[in-house]
C-alpha cells in the first residue's frame, strides 16, 4: 500500500508540473495583463509601462516562467498583483473556507444520498421510491447557482424570514466577535446551511441514484437470501450485510465528486459571498493576477490527485479483493 501510494504520488509530479506549465502558457496567451485589468482608464501609457516593470512583466516569458518555478519550489509563490500581499497569505485565507464548505457538503452528499438510496432500494417501486426518484431527478437537473438564488429568495420571503432568519451571505454575522464560544459555532453553522445545500444537494441526488442501483444488485445476491433464511432480522440483513457490500462502488464515487465539488464552489461562493478558493480563482483570472491563478490551479490539481488516490486507497481498504502491491 505504501509503495503504491509512493508510486502514485511520484507519478503526480510530472502531471502537476504539466498542469502549471499549461496554465502559465494559457494565461499569457489570453489578451491583457494585470495592468490593463485596472478599471481606471485614465492612467497614461508610461505609468502603465512602469507598473509592468515593477511587476516584472517586461521580462521574457521563459524568464518569468523559471522565476515562478523558483519561487514555487522555495514555497513563496510570489506576490498577488491584485491583493498586494504574498500569495501564500492569500491562499491561506481562502483555502480553509473552501475546505470547510466542500468538506461539510461531501458529508451531506454521502449521508443524504446513501440514506435515500437505501430507503428506495428496500422499498423498490413503492410510493416513497417513486417520489424520491422524481425528486432526485429534479434536483439533479437544477443548476447550483439557480438553486442558490432560489434558496436566498425563499428564506428572505416574508413568510419564512420571520421565524427562520437564516443568513444569506458571508461566513459570520456582523456581531460574531461579541458572541460566546457556542454562539460563534452556531453562527458559523447557520451561515453554512444554504451554501452547503446549494453545493451538495444535486450531488446527493446523484449519489442516491447510484446507491439505489448498487443496493438493488446486492439485495438480489445469494448471501442475502442465506442471511434471510438463517432468520436474521431484516434490519441486520439490510444494514449489516447488504449495505456494507453496496457501499463499495460508492466509495470510488468519492474521488469523482471531489473535483466536481471544487468546480461547484466557484459559483456557490459567488452567490453566497463565501470568501473561498473558487471566488479567488475566478477574480484572479479576471484580474490577470498570474501568481494567484498559478498557485490556485496547482492546489486544485493537487487536491484532485490526492482525492483520487484517497478513493483508490479507501477502495482497497474496504474491499479485500482489491490489492495494489502485487503478490
Amino acid at each position, binding site marked *: 500500500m505504501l509503495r503504491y501510494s509512493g508510486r502514485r504520488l511520484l507519478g503526480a509530479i510530472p502531471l502537476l508540473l504539466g498542469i502549471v506549465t499549461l496554465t502559465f502558457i494559457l494565461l499569457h496567451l489570453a489578451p491583457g495583463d494585470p495592468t490593463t485589468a*485596472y*478599471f481606471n*482608464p485614465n*492612467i497614461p*501609457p508610461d*505609468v502603465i509601462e512602469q507598473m509592468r516593470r515593477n511587476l516584472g512583466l517586461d521580462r521574457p516569458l521563459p524568464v518569468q516562467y523559471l522565476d515562478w518555478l523558483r519561487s514555487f519550489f522555495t514555497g513563496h509563490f510570489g506576490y498577488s498583483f491584485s491583493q*498586494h500581499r504574498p500569495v501564500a497569505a492569500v491562499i491561506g485565507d481562502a483555502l480553509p473556507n473552501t475546505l470547510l464548505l466542500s468538506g461539510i457538503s461531501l458529508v451531506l452528499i454521502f449521508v443524504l444520498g446513501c440514506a435515500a438510496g437505501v430507503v428506495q432500494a428496500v422499498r423498490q417501486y413503492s410510493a416513497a421510491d417513486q417520489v424520491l426518484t422524481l425528486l432526485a431527478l429534479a434536483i439533479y437537473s437544477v443548476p447550483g447557482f439557480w438553486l442558490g438564488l432560489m434558496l436566498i429568495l425563499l428564506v428572505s420571503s416574508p413568510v419564512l424570514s420571520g*421565524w427562520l*432568519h437564516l443568513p444569506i451571505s458571508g461566513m459570520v454575522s456582523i456581531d460574531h466577535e461579541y458572541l460566546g464560544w457556542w454562539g460563534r459555532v452556531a453562527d458559523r453553522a447557520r451561515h453554512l446551511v444554504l451554501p452547503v445545500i446549494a453545493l451538495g444537494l444535486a450531488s446527493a441526488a446523484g449519489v442516491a441514484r447510484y446507491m439505489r442501483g448498487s443496493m438493488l444488485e446486492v439485495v438480489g445476491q445469494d448471501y442475502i437470501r442465506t442471511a434471510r433464511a438463517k432468520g436474521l432480522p431484516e434490519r441486520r440483513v439490510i444494514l449489516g450485510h447488504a449495505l456494507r457490500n453496496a457501499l463499495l462502488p460508492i466509495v470510488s464515487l468519492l474521488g469523482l465528486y471531489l473535483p466536481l465539488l471544487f468546480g461547484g464552489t466557484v459559483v456557490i461562493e459567488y*452567490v453566497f459571498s463565501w470568501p473561498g478558493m473558487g471566488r479567488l480563482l475566478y477574480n484572479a483570472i479576471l484580474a490577470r493576477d498570474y501568481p494567484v491563478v498559478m498557485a490556485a490551479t496547482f492546489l486544485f490539481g493537487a487536491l484532485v490527485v490526492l482525492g483520487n488516490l484517497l478513493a483508490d486507497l479507501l477502495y482497497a481498504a474496504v474491499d479485500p479483493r482489491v490489492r495494489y502491491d502485487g503478490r
Partner: protein
Amino acid sequence: MPVVAAALVVVGACGGGGAGQAGSRTLVLGYAEDLQTLDPVVSTDQNANDLMYPLLYTPLVTYDTAYRVRPWLARSWTLSDSDVVFELRSDVRWQDGKPVTAEDVKFTFDLAKDPATASPLAAAYLTDVDSAEVLGPHRIRFRFSEPHAEPLQDFAWPPVPKHLLEGIDPAHLADAPFGRRPVGSGPYRVVRWEAGQEILLEAVDSFPAALGGPAAIGRVSYRILPEATTRLQELLRGDLQVDGPLEPQEAPRLEGSKRARLADFPWRQFTYIGWNTRDSLFRDPSVRRALTMAIDRNALLQATLYGHGRPAVGPIPPWHPYAPHLQPLPYDPDSARALLARAGWRDTDGDGILDRHGVPFRFRLLASQANATFPDLVQMIQAQLGKVGIEVDPELLEWQTVLSRHRARNFEAVLTNWVLDNFRVDPRPLFSTRAANTPGSANRSSYSNPVADSLMEVGTRTSDPERARRTWAVFEEILRRDQPFTFLFWNDELAGVSRDLEGVHMDARGELFTLPDWRWTGQASR
C-alpha cells in the same frame, strides 16, 4: 429531504441575527468587489479612492456640494500663477498619534512624482506641479511647471505618513503591508481587512472638531457581496444599509419598500461609441454626425438605464461648474440619411444596406459582455442603424479582450464608458493630436483637430475661470460637429439606502463622501 428540513429548523431557530443596540450598531455597506489597496499613492482603483480619500485620510483640499474647492487639511492658501503656499492645520494626527506635517505632504508628493513608483495619483493630479518645498512644520510651497486652469484641483489628494513609508523601495511600494494595514489621518481607521469578506472601520474619537469632529456612526463594515441579488435581499431584509452599485433594472424592486429607498445621483461616468477615425468608414465627420443622429440616445437611456442618466454632448459633466450645457445633436434619421447620401452612401443594389463604390456600410461594434447594459445597448443600436441602412455586427467579448483591442486601436467602433478620476477639466488625453500619436494613449479614436487642440491648450492653461468656461463651450461645439465619439449619456449612479439612516447625501464626489455625517434614525447629529 426531511433531514434537510429538520436541519434547517434546528439551525435556523438558534440564531437571533441582526445588529446590536442603536448606539453601537454597525453600519453595513455592500459592494461587489474587494478593494486592492488602501495606499492612495499606488491605488489604481476608483472604489478604493472613494472610500479612503474622505474616510481614512485628509486630502489637502476638498469639495463642497457644488464641486467647488474648499479648505481641508490645508487651512488656507496663497495662490499665484507660478506657485501656491498652503498653511496646513496643526490639529490633524496620524492614527498612531504623530502629527500630520508639511514633511508628510512633501514626502507623499516626491514619492508620487518618482517615476519608479508608477503612481496613478501623480497621473491624476500632479502633471502640472513641479516641486514641493517645506517652509515650516505646517507650511508648504508647490511650484507649477506653467500657469494652468483650476490649480487648486491639483491638491485633492491626501498625504501618507512619512515615518511609516520612508525607506521602502518605490518600485515595491504596492506590496508593502501598509496598503492593507493603512495608518491614515481621517475620521475612520481600519480595524481589520478580511480579504473577500469585509473591511471593518472604526470612528476616530480625536478627529478635529473643525473638520466635523468624530463621525456619528461608530463602526462601519464594508462588506464584499459579489452577487447583486444577494446584496439587494440583504438590504430588503435590513441586514445591509447601503447597496453600493445598484443595477438600474433592480431599482423598481425598491419601490414601496419600507426598509430602503433608492438614491439616484449624478456621477462621473459617460457611455459612448468610439469611432476609429483612421478607419475609412469613419474618417468623414459628416458620416459620424449622421451615425449619431441615427441613434435615438434618449430611447437607449430609457430602455437600458430606465432613465437614470443625463444627455451627453462632451466630456465635461453636466454638474461641473464649467459645463457648457449645449444641446446634443437631435435624433433625426431623415437628416442622417441625407448626410450619408451627400457623403456618397446610397443603396444602389436595393439590398437595404447603403453602399459606396460597391462596398456596403457594414462594421463591427465591439463591446464588453461583462457590462450589464451593453448587450441590450448593442442590440438597440444595431436595430436603429439598420433603419438608415447601416449593418452592425455586434462583437460582445470579455472585458480584457475588448480593452486590449481598444487600446491597440484594433477596432472599427467600440461601445464603452469613461470614468473621470478627478474634477479637473482636461480632455487632452482623450482628444488631443499629441495623444492620437501616442501608442497606448486614451485617444483611441485617433481624433485630431488643430482647432480643438488649441482650444484645449487655452482651456487648461488659462487661470481666468470665465475664459475657461467660454473656451470649453466652443470646444464642445467643435466636438459636437466632429463627433469622434457618439456620446450616449452620462450615467447616474444608483444605490439602495436603508431608511434606518438619516443625513445620507450622495453625489458625484462619491457615495461615501458624506458618511461621517450620516446617523441612525433618531440619533443626535454630530
